[in-house]
């Protein structure tokens, strides 16, 4: 219907109109520029945060899971006393032996003990009781000496693992493997130095000195009803959902819970946390989208206003174009294209500012946003929304132009 020459000249004309009225066009498009710039930079920050958090999750292990006691919601305290719902060593063993999808698992119990080494004495250090699989579950292996073995646990050996920070805090020699420590008055031999975790998961593990002893030994040093949690890993992140179900099934059976009864424990896979975090990030992104919606609405009204001015200024031109054969559709398209071009230029400048802001975010020290970046979909969406704004708000002025009577238009002063 409209020939290629029409489109060529309409696009050229749209740009030359913007160029001829540079400052006016800039002020008009400011709403869109600010809207797109703010949204893209928020999305950039979110993307950076997400990348950071997910990489932390990754470092913990996406296929990891936790089991801990949990009182059912709205259940009376006396019906589920704490000692009744605490995890038992037998339960950890059952899960290890019966759950086929569980690759590795360790119960962890923490006991506060006074530590002595040579002349130095520190009170109330947290000592963790673990199984040998802990190395696998936490992805932490020994730098020096040897890891824990089944024999350490089975024969309740008085051995311990420490980390590098514990060496300095306890004034131990550089290579303390073979040295002895007094933990709660009992003598333990240091058999290995474990790696210090690189990723401190959301500020957990704040105490830097760590001491580990076999779980069977820690059990004996605890009070009668002691708290333990289970950490484990599934064969792969893909089987996390099935694995959870399996663990839940075994534990329910161990606890003799009938199908209708509420669960007295929680099984939570990291996978689940990742999902939750992604949902949260998506929610914030949607809010950012809402902000761009509002600012594009404001920007769009500016566009409509300036297009109405443009139509009025160029009434004679419209009359002439109609006289030489422009159909109403051709006039409509020309003005619509001009509005869309204006919006797209605004969107482009907005994205440029957004990129600049994203770059700035990566340079904020300690903000953990070094991976902030505008993803491609956000760029595409910004352009799409800008174009849509141009179409929606350019439509009324364009229709007005297309309906001008050529005779009246040519007579217009």
């Amino acid at each position, binding site marked *: 219907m409209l020939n290629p020459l*029409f489109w060529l000249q309409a696009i050229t004309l749209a740009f030359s109109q913007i160029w001829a009225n540079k400052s006016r066009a800039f002020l008009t498009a400011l709403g869109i520029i600010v809207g797109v710039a703010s949204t893209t930079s928020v999305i950039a920050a979110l993307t950076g945060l997400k990348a950071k958090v997910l990489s932390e999750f990754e470092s913990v292990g996406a296929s990891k899971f936790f089991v801990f006691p949990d009182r059912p919601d709205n259940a009376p305290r006396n019906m589920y006393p704490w000692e009744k719902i605490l995890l038992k060593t037998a339960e950890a063993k059952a899960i290890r032996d019966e759950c086929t999808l569980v690759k590795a698992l360790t119960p962890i119990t923490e006991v506060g003990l006074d530590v002595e080494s040579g002349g130095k004495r520190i009170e109330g250090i947290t000592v963790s009781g673990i199984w040998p699989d802990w190395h696998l579950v936490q992805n932490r292996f020994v730098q020096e000496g040897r890891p824990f073995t089944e024999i350490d646990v089975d024969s309740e050996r008085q051995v311990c693992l420490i980390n590098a920070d514990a060496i300095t805090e306890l004034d131990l020699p550089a290579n303390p493997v073979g040295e002895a420590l007094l933990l709660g008055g009992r003598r333990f031999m240091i058999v290995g130095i474990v790696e210090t975790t690189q990723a401190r998961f959301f500020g957990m593990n704040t105490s830097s000195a760590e001491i580990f002893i076999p779980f069977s030994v820690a059990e004996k040093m605890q009070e009668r009803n002691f708290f333990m949690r289970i950490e484990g890993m599934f064969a792969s992140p893909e089987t996390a959902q099935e694995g959870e179900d399996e663990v839940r099934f075994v534990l329910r059976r161990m606890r003799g819970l009938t199908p209708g009864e509420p669960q007295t424990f929680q099984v939570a896979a990291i996978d689940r946390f990742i999902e939750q975090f992604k949902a949260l990030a998506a929610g914030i992104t949607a809010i950012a989208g809402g902000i761009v919606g509002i600012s594009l609405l404001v920007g769009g009204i500016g566009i409509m206003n300036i297009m109405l001015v443009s139509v009025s200024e160029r009434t004679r031109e419209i009359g002439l174009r109609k006289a030489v054969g422009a159909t109403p559709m051709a006039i409509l398209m020309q003005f619509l294209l001009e509005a869309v071009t204006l919006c797209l230029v605004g969107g482009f400048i907005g994205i440029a500012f957004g990129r600049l802001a994203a770059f700035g975010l990566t340079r904020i020290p300690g903000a953990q946003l070094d991976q902030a970046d505008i993803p491609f979909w956000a760029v595409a969406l910004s352009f799409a929304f800008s174009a849509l704004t141009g179409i929606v708000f350019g439509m009324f002025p364009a229709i007005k132009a297309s309906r001008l009577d050529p005779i009246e238009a040519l007579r217009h002063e």
Partner: protein
Amino acid sequence: MAEQNAGTGDRPLIQVVGLTKVYRVGVETIHALRGLDLTIGRNEMVAIMGSSGSGKSTLMNMLGCLDRPTSGAYMLNGRDVSRMGAKELAQVRNEEIGFVFQSFELLPRQTALENVELPLIYAKGGWRGRRQRALAALDRVGLSKRVDHRPNQLSGGQRQRVAIARAILNTPSILLADEPTGNLDSATTAEILSLFRQIHSEGQTVIIVTHEDEVAAHCQRVVRLRDGRVLSDLPIGQDIAGRHLPSVHSAHAGAERAGA
């Protein structure tokens, strides 16, 4: 003239029958045209004259397919254009009508060449070879050395030449000029009018709407309107004789008739 009509069948180029146009301005009703009849043949050069309020502007808008009559018929090239919609009329204007306006109506930011090309933007498929066609049109009006000039770099006469080149680009059925010399001095007026006559001599039908007898004197035929009707429709010689115009125009008109 008669021979030319015969050559393209018996139908005249323009046949207007019982044309009326009624405007409503507020509570007032204005009868701009009251049953006007007019026939114009191919390759005629006609002046349409009349005082303001005579309906000559309205008639020009009708002939130029810019407006539709309230009643009556307008056959252009055998097609009834009086009942066409806005889109069809736009196409007819693009293909059949070349407009020349008093104030030139050139696009200020575009070169002479781009201005001349304008109708091709809206042409159906006729955009191929546009540059050559626009250059040829500029050559016909004697502006082949000014193709890259913008309107503000051209004199009034040159601007009107660009406008004429734009009008004849599509080789329209009618070259329709509305007071084409109204903004020009007398020397330039003469140049432009002789350009119209040259284009007419090349086979173009020309209709000039004017209120100046000097302009009308360059045409073959003068249609005078009053109160929305044709007052007189005479060959230029008889028209001037009836109005006792100065002899210089008679001589001019005589030469024109001799030439035709």
